[in-house]
């Protein structure tokens, strides 16, 4: 705001505060709920927003599972966190690696049907996972990849978006740089490693953040390909904690699990924020 009028300042602050509240409120509720016991949550309707003193207990129950006061046995979340972490990392790193290489091939090598291949990749942009989920499931199950990290990650690795992003970036790298590298005796792979990769560093960081969260938040696909409990990612774990039918739901544990599920993506965003923003706005080559 360039204008300095009290009303405008007040209004804009009001909007910002409202926005923060809307975003922050669910997180606050989760925090508060995790700090109460399940009886406290069950007894007061609506739920009290005064934090209780049961936070650490809820957390440890969520992480390590065990019997609850209602007599339910809860599965531990720690292994699920591990499954989620591995899948998200493999998906993010795999997507970046595959996209970098395919963009490199499309931009720097002349081979038959190059244009056609690029457009085929481009068209898959229009097909989200859900559209091709049945055939993909058939393929994965035929290959015997159900209930494995391979099944959880490989089908999600191919990425037209990332390929397209890197292609656009590579196209802005001046031809003279490629030629200078040729004169300097750098072969294609050396050029890729020594010049293209360092230049793409910020884009890679930005993409890593986006793809890590994408991988972390997968729900539908793991639901299909995993049947063994030790292969469940945490997002599925949250859902499974919400009991159906007659049994009571331990809301404090559900909320603690939700908080645990939020931590890694939040950490990735916070730690890589500087690079992330740079990667999205930087145009300096």
């Amino acid at each position: 705001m360039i204008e300095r009028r009290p009303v405008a300042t007040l209004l804009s602050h009001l909007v910002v505060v409202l926005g923060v509240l809307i975003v922050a409120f669910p997180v606050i509720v989760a925090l508060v709920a995790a700090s109460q016991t399940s009886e406290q949550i069950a007894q007061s309707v609506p739920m009290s927003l005064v934090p209780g003193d049961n936070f650490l207990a809820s957390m440890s129950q969520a992480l390590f599972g065990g019997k609850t006061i209602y007599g339910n046995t809860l599965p531990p979340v720690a292994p699920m966190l591990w499954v989620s972490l591995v899948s998200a990392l493999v998906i993010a790193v795999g997507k970046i690696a595959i996209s970098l290489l395919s963009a490199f091939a499309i931009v720097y090598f002349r081979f038959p049907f190059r244009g056609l291949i690029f457009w085929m990749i481009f068209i898959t942009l229009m097909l989200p996972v859900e559209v091709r989920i049945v055939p993909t499931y058939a393929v994965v199950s035929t290959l015997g990849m159900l209930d494995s990290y391979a099944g959880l990650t490989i089908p999600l690795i191919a990425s037209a978006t990332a390929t397209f992003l890197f292609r656009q970036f590579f196209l802005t790298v001046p031809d003279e740089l490629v030629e200078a590298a040729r004169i300097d005796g750098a072969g294609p792979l050396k050029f890729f490693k020594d010049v293209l990769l360092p230049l793409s560093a910020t884009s890679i960081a930005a993409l890593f953040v986006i793809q890590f969260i994408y991988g972390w938040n997968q729900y539908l696909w793991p639901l299909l390909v995993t049947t063994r409990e030790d292969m469940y990612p945490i997002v599925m774990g949250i859902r499974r904690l919400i009991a159906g039918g007659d049994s009571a739901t331990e809301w404090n544990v559900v909320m603690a699990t939700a908080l645990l599920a939020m931590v890694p993506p939040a950490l990735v965003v916070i730690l890589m924020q500087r690079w992330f923003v740079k990667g999205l706005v930087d145009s300096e080559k």
Partner: protein
Amino acid sequence: MGSIALRRVEKTYGHGPKAFKAIHGVDAEIADGEFVVIVGPSGCGKSTLLRMVAGLEQITGGEIAIGGRVVNRLEPSERDIAMVFQNYALYPHMTVYDNMAYGLRNARVPKAEIDTRVRRAAEILELGALLERKPRQLSGGQRQRVAMGRAIVRQPQVFLFDEPLSNLDAKLRAQTRIEIQKLHSDLGITSLFVTHDQVEAMTLAQRMIVMNAGRIEQIGTPEQVYGAPATTFVAGFIGSPPMNLLPGTARANRFEIEGASLTLPGAAPREGALTLGLRPEHAQWQDGAGGEGSWPLQVELVEMLGAERLVHGRLGRAPFTLRIDGTLTPPRPGQTMALRVDAQRLHWFDSGTGQRVA
């Protein structure tokens, strides 16, 4: 050693009916240690030719030899050349030091040797204090010097320059021109320099190659090219302002141009359709009608350049430019000047082929 031989070199882009021939069989010999400038208008194929020598463009026909070795099928890095690009093409993420060392590392030169060479080049180019900087922290002129440093450390047989001065401002360009000349006389490495700027070409070249439309128009020293242009193209391209070219018909010692009949100081080399060339500085003049044998120039416009003035006017209906001393009282537009010319200063070209007759 570092000689370059071009034999019937051709370049065609595309295939079949859409094919475009960019270079039509070029022949040239460049001696070891020579500084040769290729000059020509945009699109004449000069950069393509240089890039073929560098190995960045495939050679469609003919042969290129560097140091007596045919390099048609060699990778750029195997040709023992170094190139300075128009936009410098420095690796943006590497320091000045790494930019210069990169090629040597790829060639597996020992570390100590790399260090010696880079520091030596940095010393020559006064880059010593900048070795740890990144290219974006450098000015245009400094980047240019790093690009040259990258070429020097390779200790190649041949330097190739692709319009390296065109991104510098006028003052820096003049300065860098001198530095390049000094560098060449110190290192004595064969250099091939491409430019569209004829001042660069004239000042830098030991010999220049004037190209037009994929063909060589003339190869010669700057004096030869300026003093005896081989074609009307060269006559019109080299020199600023360019040579006056008057198409007409020669008969005995008269030359009929559009709207006037000029008396020649001597007979034309032959009768018939010819083009007469005369440099703007090569005519004596006086005010008013000059009497028998002088050429009447109808003044239209006078430009002041400082040390000299350019008088634009017409001989008959043909446009004609005259360069006169800036300190003299200039003629006014509308006035007539009488020109006198020396037979030795006249250039004659065939009107059909544009080739020099005498």
